[in-house]
């Protein structure tokens, strides 16, 4: 018997098969995944550069150490600029990753929305002790007294110095500048000019974005300016200091002429020798060391009343889940990663947040040369310029290229407005943000 398959029959068959696949096989796959062992925790991370490689080693180490213990971590890289929307939209349906990277002080809005979970109770149940953590790290990770993040490393902004430039300028690199005046004197000697034009910045800046904004924020703090009062009620304490700091930054370009606005990529500019001193964070070290740049680091000098500097505290946060049974396993994983953060805090990124790691004899000798990373560890006590933990926290951050602070201060650097007008505009918005809570 000859059976003839018509086009219509073929289409019906294909449609039926597609339906079977959609309704039958997919749940079967999900069931297999849920029933399978070991439990796989999903971790979202935005780390992609050299620090990302070290973090991958951390995750690999966890998986190797816990191979027979029932928990494995699957790390997925989510681009930095999509991280927020990805977590929020996934959390709205209960499908966010088990844990991910966070920054202390910037999650007040997520805490309010219930996206990030408080850790105190979960940690207690998982037997995690907090006594070994650096108190400042824990304090910065709390909102309303509750802990929402496991601090993993503290990143302070300190100054990198190109040793070849300094040596050629006859400067003693063993005695780097300690004050604002010394910094300007060094910058003057390190700057190269052709006529009126700065061809190599003694103190590397850009004409807009992160670099002038964060420099202003640090110097303003040193001079006594506060973005918010300690009780988060009043914005712009000692506004005059903020104006003076903006003038100090402007003078780098126009009065002392030790910086040029013409730098497009600050990281590249320092790496290629177009700048001699560079205020930056420890995440740049791996790249410059790999490129065999001859440099050292020193602590941010005392331009104002002290040597305060900006810090960013990185850590791991747990996101709201449909399946509550995963929380304890996630807490255990976070504890393991924190307990074993020696690699991360010597070769990966910032300073350790565990007292036991900081006290280890090999902490200073592991990882990059202490001349390169020492300032970022020793300078942590001065790293007090952090985030403001309110819902509109990102408006307050000074380490930003496109955020509110940068957008408001950029016209100052471009000489389109005055420091006072810009600082007043900042304070006006910040006060509204504080009032909103």
């Amino acid at each position, binding site marked *: 018997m000859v059976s003839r398959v018509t086009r219509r029959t073929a289409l019906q068959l294909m449609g039926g098969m597609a339906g079977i696949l959609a309704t039958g096989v997919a749940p079967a796959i999900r069931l297999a995944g849920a029933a399978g062992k070991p439990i796989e925790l999903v971790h979202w991370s935005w780390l992609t550069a050299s620090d990302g490689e070290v973090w991958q080693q951390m995750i690999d180490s966890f998986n190797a150490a816990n191979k027979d213990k029932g928990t494995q971590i699957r790390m997925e890289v989510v681009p930095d600029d999509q991280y927020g*929307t990805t977590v*929020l939209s996934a*959390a709205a349906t209960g499908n966010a990753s088990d844990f991910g990277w966070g920054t202390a002080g910037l999650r007040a809005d997520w805490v309010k929305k219930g996206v990030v979970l408080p850790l105190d109770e979960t940690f207690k149940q998982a037997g995690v002790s907090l006594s070994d953590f650096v108190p400042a790290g824990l304090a910065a990770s709390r909102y309303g007294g509750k802990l929402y993040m496991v601090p993993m490393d503290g990143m302070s902004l300190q100054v990198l110095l190109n040793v070849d430039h300094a040596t050629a300028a006859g400067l003693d690199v063993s005695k780097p500048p300690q004050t604002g005046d010394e910094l300007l004197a060094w910058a003057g000697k390190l700057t190269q000019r052709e006529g009126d034009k700065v061809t190599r910045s003694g103190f590397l800046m850009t004409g807009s974005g992160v670099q002038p904004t964060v420099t202003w924020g640090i110097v303003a703090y040193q001079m006594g300016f506060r973005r918010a009062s300690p009780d988060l009620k009043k914005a712009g304490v000692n506004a005059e200091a903020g104006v003076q700091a903006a003038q100090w930054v402007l003078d780098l370009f126009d009065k002392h002429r030790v910086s040029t606005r013409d730098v*497009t990529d600050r990281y590249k500019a320092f790496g*290629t020798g177009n700048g001699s001193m560079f205020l930056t964070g420890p995440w740049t070290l791996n790249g410059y060391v790999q490129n065999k740049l001859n440099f050292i680091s020193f602590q941010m000098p005392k331009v104002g009343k002290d040597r305060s500097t900006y810090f960013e505290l990185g850590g791991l946060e747990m996101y709201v889940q449909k399946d509550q049974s995963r929380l304890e396993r996630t807490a255990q994983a976070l504890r393991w990663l924190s307990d074993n953060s020696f690699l991360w805090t010597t070769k990966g990124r910032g300073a350790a947040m565990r007292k036991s790691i900081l006290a280890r004899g090999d902490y200073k000798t592991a990882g990059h040369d202490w001349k390169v990373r020492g300032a970022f560890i020793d300078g942590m006590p001065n790293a007090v310029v952090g985030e403001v933990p309110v819902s509109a926290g990102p408006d307050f951050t000074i380490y930003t*290229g496109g955020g509110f602070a*940068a957008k408001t201060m950029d016209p100052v650097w471009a000489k389109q407005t005055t420091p006072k007008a810009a600082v007043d505009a900042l304070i006006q918005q910040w006060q509204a943000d504080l009032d909103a809570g």
Partner: protein
Amino acid sequence: MGAIGGAPAIPRAGRSLPFDRLRRATWNGERIDWSAYIFILPFLVPFLVVTIGASLFGVYVSFTDWGIIGAPHWVGLKNYSRALADPWVVKTWSNTLRYGMLVVPATTLAALAMALFVNLRWRGYTFARAAFYAPNVVSVTVIGLVWVWMLDTQYGLVNQYLGRFGVPDIPWLTNPGWVLYGVALASVWWDAGFSMVVLLAGLQDIPGELRESASIDGATPFQALWHVVLPLLRPALSLVVTLLIIGTLRVFSQIYIMTNGGPAGASASVIHYVYEIGFSKYQLGYAGAISVMLFATILVVTLIQLRVFREKTW
């Protein structure tokens, strides 16, 4: 054996009656071939859900204060009135329009010159055609990163070459007065290839006899171009200009990669601002309102432009 009394007819071959009706359905007297619709379903369903559905949802969201988590709350026209009072909306609109006024004429002229050159079919024209089009196949991220390097004030290639002619260093991407020119330069280089292909197709549709007749009548090459070629190229030019206007009004990637809107917001475009509001501050309602305003602007500008270029066939 016949049917008993008023018992309902049994559907043929065991099929349900509605399915049978559907199979026999007609449109304008012709039977509908459903298989064609099944073939377009893989496109149609995602298009309806992801494009049309998302657009309609975006319009709805623009009247709410939605922030991804939680239900949207209806706020009426609040987002629109906020946008009208927002100085950054004015600034980004102004930047975008100025960027468009640079890119649209520059790209059209560059593409026209390239198309005319290729259409002459001089030696090596096939290579030229490929070379002119090549930038268009490169990812915008690559274009952006390469041009950031090319336009670097201190060690960029463009300033190096200009310096040989005594031109002082131009702060292409670091000065508020220059930055739109810098981004526009990269955009023209990227976009011109595609426009060239459209114009080339238009040129190749123009019969050679018309130009020969003009030549016999004593027209110079420029007169032939101005009075014969360009009028006949009007439909292609209209398409190119329309697409360029739409493209420039929603420019984002080049700016995001090359300047992130700086310095001092001098290159921030409308979509860049929408991105910041929506994806950094999670104010999707407000971002939606600005997007709807941009959509309305694009619609109006396109309608005006189509009116100006009203297409005529020869």
